[in-house]
């Protein structure tokens, strides 16, 4: 985790300073101040804070052409996400390099970027990294939900000032979309399909005409034109409500990119190990997770997700989400149990107990599938950890 004390000093965000006069004076200062002063105590600092050092170095060494309004060139942004061992840039996203290429090129064109995929495939992380690389700022975020309103997307009013002074730039409270357009930055829209259709559609004119009307204001203030660098990254998961819930008009304005679960076992294992170690350190546990236990865990997750064992036997797949993110959280829980209950690194039998809560949730059918899996497939495997995993099958509730 990189230090971020000199965030405001190292970021020379050319092209954004002159926009702050209109809406942003207050929050621009506050955002960065909050980020700098509290970075250490914050549970999860934003990507541009965590990787401030790498961003600064990339920017310094960046000789590629930058699309207008971008903080980095396309190639530097690519290196920021995919990593570059020689330059000391860490790899932050595991997946096809071509996915990153396509995402960046989409952002540089006049279409928005829509990341879709199963839950837990790191779509939000990817959108955060892309925003941090392109705009140097990933905090302009709209969290979609059933109760999201246009106010939270475009703008709302400071009602005391509105009553006292009438509509004016002073009484206007800009929401992420308005700010992103005015400042030429990337706006993230998380879980867009969880919003009602009518609310989603307020993105239409900002995406196609690149203009947002503020009918309450008059004159030049009534129209906010998007500056260079503005674009939208939306995410949607295919499990809850598909992208079919989006209007065709809005779909047309996005390039779709599907993010898939990690195809390769070794890569996924490595990622789970790395993230679990990190989380355990954060929980004050010095002991790294046991690699053999993790292997069992990741194998089980992959098999339950794909509905096929390593040998190729078909089996029932779980309906719950069995993503890498869930695997990390189970690995974390296993480590916690081992350390605080017994003082070891966690064992395969801990997996069983954690699986019941994390994976099967309260779904009785999934619980039955999990039990079948343990009895039919796990029992046959060789290896101490597998046998322990099998031996603990009675720990499943019910």
């Amino acid at each position: 985790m990189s230090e971020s004390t000199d965030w405001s000093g190292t970021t020379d965000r050319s092209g954004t300073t002159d926009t702050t006069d209109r809406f942003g004076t207050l929050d621009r200062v506050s955002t960065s101040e909050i980020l700098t002063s509290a970075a250490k105590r914050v549970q999860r600092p934003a990507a541009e804070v965590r990787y401030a050092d790498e961003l600064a170095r990339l920017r310094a060494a960046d000789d590629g052409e930058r699309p207008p309004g971008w903080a980095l060139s396309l190639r530097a942004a690519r290196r920021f996400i995919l990593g570059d061992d020689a330059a000391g840039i860490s790899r932050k996203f595991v997946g096809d390099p071509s996915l990153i290429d396509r995402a960046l090129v989409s952002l540089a064109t006049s279409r928005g970027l829509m990341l879709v995929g199963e839950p837990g495939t790191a779509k939000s992380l990817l959108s955060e990294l892309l925003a941090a690389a392109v705009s140097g700022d990933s905090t302009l975020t709209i969290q979609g939900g059933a109760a999201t309103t246009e106010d939270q997307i475009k703008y709302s009013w400071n009602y005391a000032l509105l009553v006292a002074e009438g509509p004016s730039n002073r009484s206007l409270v800009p929401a992420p979309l308005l700010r992103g357009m005015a400042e030429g930055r990337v706006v993230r829209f998380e879980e867009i399909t969880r919003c009602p259709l009518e609310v989603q559609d307020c993105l239409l004119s900002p995406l196609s005409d690149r203009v947002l009307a503020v009918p309450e204001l008059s004159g030049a203030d009534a129209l906010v034109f998007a500056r260079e660098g503005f674009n939208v990254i939306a995410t949607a998961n295919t499990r809850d409500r598909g992208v079919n819930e989006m209007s065709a008009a809005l779909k047309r304005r996005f390039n779709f990119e599907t993010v898939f679960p990690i195809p390769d076992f070794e890569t996924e294992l490595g990622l789970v190990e790395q993230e679990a170690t990190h989380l355990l350190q954060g929980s004050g546990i010095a002991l790294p997770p046991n690699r053999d236990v993790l292997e069992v865990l990741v194998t089980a997750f992959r098999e339950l997700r794909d509905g096929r064992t390593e040998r190729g036997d078909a089996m029932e797949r779980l309906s719950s989400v069995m993503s890498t993110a869930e695997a990390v959280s189970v690995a974390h829980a296993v480590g916690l149990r081992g350390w605080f209950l017994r003082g070891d690194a966690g064992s395969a039998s801990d997996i069983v107990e954690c699986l019941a809560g994390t994976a099967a949730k309260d779904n009785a059918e999934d619980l039955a599938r999990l039990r079948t899996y343990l009895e039919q497939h796990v029992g046959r495997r060789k290896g101490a950890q597998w046998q322990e995993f099998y031996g603990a099958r009675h720990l499943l509730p019910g």
Partner: protein
Amino acid sequence: MLPKPLNGLNPLNPMQPAAALEPPATPEMLTIVGVRHHSPACAKLVREAIDRLQPAHVLIEGPADVNPRLGEFLLGHELPIAVFTSARRGLTSQASWSPFCDYSPEWIALREGTRSGAQVRFIDLPAWHPAFATMANRYADAERRYTQAVDGLCRTLGTDNSDTLWDHLAEIDAGDIPAAELSARLNTYFDLIRSAVDGIGEPASGSAAEPSAEPTTETTTEPTTDEVREAYMARWIAAALRDTPDRPVLVVCGGFHRPALLRRVAAFSYREMEDAYWPEIPAPEPDVTAVSYLVPYSFRRLDAFVGYQSGMPSPAYYQRLWELGPRGAASALTGEVVDRLRARNQPVSTADLIAARVTGEGLASVRGHRHPARADLLDGLVSALVGEALDRPLPWTGRGGLTVGTHPAVVEMVAALSGDRTGRLHPDTPLPPLVHDAEAELERHGLDQPQTATLDLTAHVRRDASRLLHRLRVLRVPGYERLSGPDPSVEDSTFTEQWRIAVDPDRLAALIEAGGHGPTVELAARAVLGERVLTGGGLDSAARALFDAVLCGIEDLSGQVLSGLAAAVAADGDVEALGTVLTAVLGLWRHDRLLAAEQSATLGAVVVAAVDRLLWLLELVQTGGGPAPAEPRRIAAVRAVRDAIRYAAAKLGLDAVRATAVMARIAGNAAAPPDLRGAAFGFGWSLGTPPPDAERTIRAAGGAAVLGDWLSGLFALAREQCLEEGPGEEPSQGPDQGPEQLSALAVVDALVAAMTDHDLLVALPALRQAFGYFPPRERETIAGRIARRHGFDDSGRALLRDRIEDPLALARGRELDSHVQAVLEREGLLW
């Protein structure tokens, strides 16, 4: 803008600087062009090398055994074509292909080498050699077998897989940079992969450091197939160098082999070079028949997305790249994709096309390409044209092929890149005898033109025609489709067969390849069927092969196949499936005149094996004695055994005594399921061994929960015997009952009458199922007889049709009645 690959490559190679891989003493007349098979960029390099060097010898990685027939290659075929090799040992055969297309480096070497007057030779081992045992395609990428080494390189250069990596390194720049630079770049690439692979497999540079020593590792460890082939190729190179010491020798081989060949040639001592004569071509073992022929090939088969074990994907794209260059190929590809999508009524707007173009160019520039490469174009098209979530990853980002569930637009894109070009052989190309045999036979039967033919199988001539078509079908020659006709595995009464004969571009290739199985259609079909019986997965496929043999009129399958078939039957543990097969085979063996399978020895052997096996399996079926539902297919298996004993015991030498004994044991085994016990009991009775005490046996069959299932078995086998009337009723016309016996039906009637209302409710469903084995007329007879027994002077028909709407409802009502009665009595309310 210069791409980065070379700068990227160097830091990759910390363990071994590229220069150290160059052997110290490469003969100066030797040039080895290391290629990727089916790469247009490499084809250009080969053409350039031949023009520049004017070599005396051009040596090509390819099957050395076809060297005497190289003239056949240059007759003027339309590519793609392939050398097809089939090696047959006994009944098993192994097929392999060495494909060539217009832009194959090997093809260019062959064509341009011949044109420049060089001696052209193939120098690799023949395709039937054990070194190729697991390879169906000679020109599959060698490095694909070593994915680890390539994966590391892909990660460093930020590409998805080896195909995009290759485009990045070779294809996109091929037209823009000098040949020397491109070839240095590719050699670095192949050297890196080879050294990484050697580093994993064995200490690599040992032999390079001491050039005088033959690679000594071979004596200690088993040489890999690559090493065996490389040793052989190196001998050809040495011989060529010795033959013309002062003229250039050009070798065209897979880039993966180039470093090893250089090492090996450099390691030859002066003496060895002096003694290097043209290597002999190995001969196959005496019991192996190997044949090689040119066959038409197709882009579909070349494409890695569809087949497995191939080389470069997307042949149609690379064909265009070879002809038109990267820009031309890009626009042709886009046009093709749009045409295909529009033909499927998918809207593709101009705005989409602009977006696709812009995205493609953008991707090319991010990835450092001068021109949009294959994946840039495809990525751009997908971004612009697919507006929804994908269920499967894009095929060109992974290593696998198309999978089920791939987005239809993506499927069209892959198809557009794959192309549908099919090669055509020059008319003078020698063909295997089977092709001539097939053509002559088809002409004789008037089946050589596309048509829908209706064949009356009762006429001998037409039956022969049917057999010919079935043989072609069995040989998987496309274009011969059977629309309808008799099915030997079920009883039916069709006497005609309909076939649709169509023109198929793959027909000739399939015929030539079928020639690997035998010199005539009949012999080849027999070999294929034999192979299917022997290697097939269990009884099911063996049975299907057997029925195909019947349809093909292949009567005398060899003894080996017969024993294999018997083994398949004997290894099967599925009573039901075995019963089905036995029923069908027995039916054919007894009655079939149409297909002339009556009394066939092949079918007889199957009957014998199946009866043996079933007798064994049936005795093993045990459920522990409790109630178990009747299984009609299991009962049918017992009946099939009975029929075999009844009709075929004498001719086939089946042991009826043993069968009866087995069945008697099953009938008396309390642990066997009730239906099986009943069937086993009926088995002996129906074969004419009247049971000593049928009445007692039926009474002992079991309680209400079991009786119906037991009777199902009994009625299925001994229906007629059960219908016979005992003397206890009316004066009988039946021949010989023991005077003291009641008929089976009377016993059942007595049992049912004695049941409580609750028992009846339990027993009724199974009883109804059991009586389902009687045809309606017999049921009527039974009903009448029962009615008379109970003093009704009624016709059975009325009893069956009118009185009882739903017997189960009736039984349920009666049970309720008696329950109410019991409750009333218990509470003392009834007196």
